[in-house]
């Protein structure tokens, strides 16, 4: 795990904080949910209000997570395109450490942004909708569940993007696939809002979490196979 952490730290320090483009893209996704909240001051009272507040909270955590998909796609395809993957694979690091290190290097900072975005939403929501409405609608366990769902989403989407990145040859192709994944995810999040308005309690959240876990297991296993050292080198 030590070398995975080393690879993750390098990604964060040099590839995210060293790339203004990445910071700007991530910043754009982080600002979007705040704009949604500010443009929805008139949340009605009663149960509909609680659902709206919950949906906004989900969007606040999941929309910034979309930026992570593009980051994960670029980290793998750029390594292939620039040839930097060969020295990494030639070092005495386990295949899994490379995959986990790179994944965590992208997921870590994005999760910090998701958490920050959710916190900003909570403060803004308390000011705009009233603390008395926010508290019951978003108890700590729901806030925690939302962050877990965001994390699971990142791992699921990231793993599928990694699988594609193992096959495509250019950063551009990787980014196109990431774009498709982001579009699909945005559509799913919109449907989630509709589902939340139809189904009582937190069942959509639970359903989403279970679906993500199932997809994670499948995607990570495929990603592990396609990113095996010999497989990757054979495709370079």
């Amino acid at each position, binding site marked *: 795990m030590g070398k995975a952490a080393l690879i993750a730290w390098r990604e964060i*320090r040099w*590839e995210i904080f060293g*790339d203004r483009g990445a910071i700007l893209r991530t910043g754009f996704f982080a600002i979007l949910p705040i704009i949604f909240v500010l443009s929805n001051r008139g949340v009605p009272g009663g149960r509909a209000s609680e659902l709206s507040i919950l949906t906004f909270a989900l969007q606040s955590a999941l929309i910034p997570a979309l930026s992570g998909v593009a980051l994960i796609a670029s980290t793998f395809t750029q390594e292939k395109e620039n040839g930097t993957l*060969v*020295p*990494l694979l*030639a*070092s*005495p690091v386990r295949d899994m450490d490379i995959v986990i290190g790179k994944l965590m290097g992208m997921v870590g900072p994005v999760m910090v942004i998701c958490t920050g975005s959710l916190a900003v939403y909570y403060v803004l929501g308390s000011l705009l909708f009233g603390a008395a409405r926010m508290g019951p609608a978003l108890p700590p366990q729901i806030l925690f569940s939302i962050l877990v769902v965001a994390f699971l989403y990142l791992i699921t989407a990231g793993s599928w993007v990694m699988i594609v990145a193992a096959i495509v040859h250019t950063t551009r192709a990787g980014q196109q696939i990431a774009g498709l994944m982001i579009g699909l995810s945005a559509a799913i999040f919109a449907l989630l809002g509709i589902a939340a308005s139809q189904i009582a309690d937190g069942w959509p959240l639970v359903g989403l979490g279970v679906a993500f876990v199932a997809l994670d297991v499948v995607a990570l296993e495929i990603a592990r196979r396609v990113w095996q*050292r010999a497989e990757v080198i054979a495709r370079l």
Partner: protein
Amino acid sequence: MIDVRDVSRSFGRLVALDHVSFRVEPGEIVALLGPNGAGKTTASRIIAGILAPSQGDVLVDGISVTTDPGSVRVRCGMVTDQPSLYERMTLRAYLTFFCHLYDVAAADRRTEELARLLGLSDRLEVRLGAFSRGMKQKVAIARGLVHDPPVLLLDEPATALDPETARSLRAFIVSLRARHRAILLCTHDLDEAQRIADRVVVLYRGRVVREGLTLDLRADIHPHFIVAFSGDAASARDALARAGVAAQPAEAENGYNALRFDADEPGTTNPAVLRALLDSGVRVVTLAREERSLEDAYFAIVDEAQRPESRNVDG
């Protein structure tokens, strides 16, 4: 030490390596030559423990790449034809990162030592993206040496370097040989191979078509002789033709004329040439065997390998 034992590797239906065997001893530089697609890079990747052979095995320092590729990677330093650096990192951060990947104790000290060795001490805090091509290649070499490996795999290390940097790189590789490193040099640069390689392995379509000492390979090819003389070149050539020796004009110095001819049996041909020339009235100045380069030897070997009958016999 590298011991490649009957290694084959296929990618689908493409056979990249076909029963390849050769050795590289400590303190030896072996040049792996061959046209594009001959299997040089595949061979070096298998030796480095990052690509599994389909058949056969490679022992690096006595450790098998098929059973313990992780330990093989610890013993190999690999330099690729492209520097392939993380260009947003500074030199210090980059080398320290690889020191940690290879579990090098005192990573900071090793980083500074390597930077000093390659003349990059004043660039430690500079981002790699700002380096020239030659400096980037030096960094790639430093990366391959962070763990002071006993085996070095150099894949076209001097690609796109200016002559001065290429020369200093060659001197550096030779200095590593003096430190008993086993060095495999995959290259298209035959001049570079001739200057520094002790032995040569020629690959063609995934098979070893010739292996031997660099000097022996150069000596083995069809011998050419050059005779320099003063007198009429046309009549000298006619005289040789009458003696049954086909000669071609060659470059000569000091105002003399020169002719080049083949001699499979110099003991018989050369006296006949001298006699014919003296009889024709020209004054012979020198008769010498032409120095053949590794390039001449390489093309002769590849030409032979390309002949259909050669392939049929081999296959």
